[in-house]
């Protein structure tokens, strides 16, 4: 490395300091916080204990909420993939002005805040709102559904929040597949379904895998959507964590809950990565 190149490295200092001091250090600190004793006048005490973990693992209530969070996020991710794949497929074939309009239709919700989009569902999912009107017009239901403050609406809104995160990587993977490949499969007598299942789907996996992981990680930790649209009926881990931090001010317990949630999420992601290893290898070959 030349002298001027070594000098250039120093330019990274502010960014590295920002991420180290205000992210890596605080998260490491949180691990310490989770072993603190409960405080009396302060949000945490001076001594160390493992009681918060013992309490979480010994209480069926926490197990239930954790399981619900992990399970709901899995369902959201799966639905998100089902909704996103056709959009990504259609987008990957678009060119010119049509492509620009489609990208704009995907980027606009992406660049609008989660709170605003969730609020849009409060209007859309009202008894006489457009969701019920559409379902009735399509003959799927006879009478309007009560959606507000139900788990169904929370899941629907979360899927909506994460669709762009899934569409974009899959679209990029699909654009990288040479069009000759599916034509070749067709000319060799494969039906369209077979060509899709055996050629296109495996080759788009390098887009599916990061999309699934990103959406799952974000969905597990989603706080705003259940808080605004779920009402008081169903509790998820993020609601519980924020409640301990800003409501009851039990910081050590809140930290322990956050760490349990993060490690469980990491476990699920690792299991998924290992389980789908073979598909990734096949797509690379």
């Amino acid at each position: 490395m030349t002298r001027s190149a070594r000098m250039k490295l120093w330019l990274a200092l502010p960014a590295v300091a920002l991420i180290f001091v205000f992210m890596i250090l605080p998260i490491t600190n949180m691990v310490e916080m989770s072993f603190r004793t409960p405080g009396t006048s302060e949000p945490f005490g001076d001594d160390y204990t493992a009681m918060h973990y013992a309490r979480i693992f010994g209480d069926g209530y926490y197990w239930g909420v954790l399981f619900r969070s992990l399970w709901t996020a899995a369902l959201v991710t799966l639905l998100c993939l089902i909704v996103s794949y056709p959009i990504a497929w259609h987008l990957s074939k678009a060119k010119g002005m049509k492509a620009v309009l489609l990208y704009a239709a995907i980027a606009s919700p992406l660049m609008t805040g989660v709170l605003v989009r969730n609020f849009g569902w409060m209007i859309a999912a009202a008894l006489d709102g457009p969701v019920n009107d559409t379902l009735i017009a399509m003959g799927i239901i006879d009478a309007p559904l009560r959606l507000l403050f139900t788990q169904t609406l929370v899941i629907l809104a979360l899927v909506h929040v994460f669709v762009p995160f899934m569409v974009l990587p899959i679209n990029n993977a699909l654009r990288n597949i040479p069009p000759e490949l599916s034509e070749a499969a067709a000319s060799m007598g494969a039906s369209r379904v077979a060509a899709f299942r055996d050629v296109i789907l495996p080759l788009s996996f390098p887009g599916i895998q990061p999309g699934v992981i990103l959406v799952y990680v974000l969905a597990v930790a989603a706080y705003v959507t259940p808080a605004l649209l779920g009402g008081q009926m169903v509790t998820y881990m993020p609601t519980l964590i924020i409640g301990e931090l800003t409501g009851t001010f039990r910081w050590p317990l809140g930290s322990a809950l956050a760490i349990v949630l993060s490690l469980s999420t990491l476990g699920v992601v690792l299991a998924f990565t290992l389980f789908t290893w073979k598909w990734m290898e096949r797509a690379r070959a």
Partner: protein
Amino acid sequence: MNRSAFANQGPVTLGFGLLIVLLYVFLLMPLVTIIGASFTSGQLMAFPPEGFSLQWYAEFLGRKNLIDGLLLSLKVGAVTAVVTMAIAMMAALAGQVITGKLGGWFQLGMTLPLLVPELLTAVGLLFFLYKIGLGKTGLGLQIGHILMSFPYAYVSISAAMRPVPRALDEASASLGATGWQTFRLVTLPLVMPGLAMGGIFAFINSFDLYTISLLLKPIGGNTLPLALFDFLTYEFKPTAAAAATISILLSLVGVGLVQKLVGLQRAF
């Protein structure tokens, strides 16, 4: 989209076309309902709206807590954009000389705030800022926003820098230009669109942040999303739709600018 074109290609293609239309309706529905509901002349927040009026925008302008939220969000977003553009530009220049495996790790580190759930970062920062005496302060909130928005600026700028050939730097240096001159006269003009896009993404991301603002906000200092949440919890009136429409318009302007600067397809 041409429906007769679908019809010529058989029922499968027609069905697929309908599915795509429905999926885009799903994607745009919340934005359309908010914009629609904000212009109602009636008293209820509903879509489709009754008639047309700007009364709820007038009502919004008279709501001190929402206006204060909007102003705070604009201020925090502007500072976030300027600061992240500067440090992301510097980091991207350094990233140019970090090659190989190390370069991959550097990229990963720079995008860390995007990959770790916001909730985790927010909780960690809440304790940390409290410890260093910045708990519940405007500066603490600002730091949180800069941290969370930095990766957007970094990704945009470093992507813009990739096609700039290193040979240009060397040519400029061999002609006697100092490092600063090379940056100002050669690199900067070439990466300008990426830099501007990074600033737009950072601003919009900051404007939309919720969880981190909830945990770090100063006492009595609500950003627009926080103020909107509180408003919706107590009053379900079209005033909220008017406030949210402003936020949607901002993102539409952002989308338009990104398309003009580098093209949406390259940006995403």
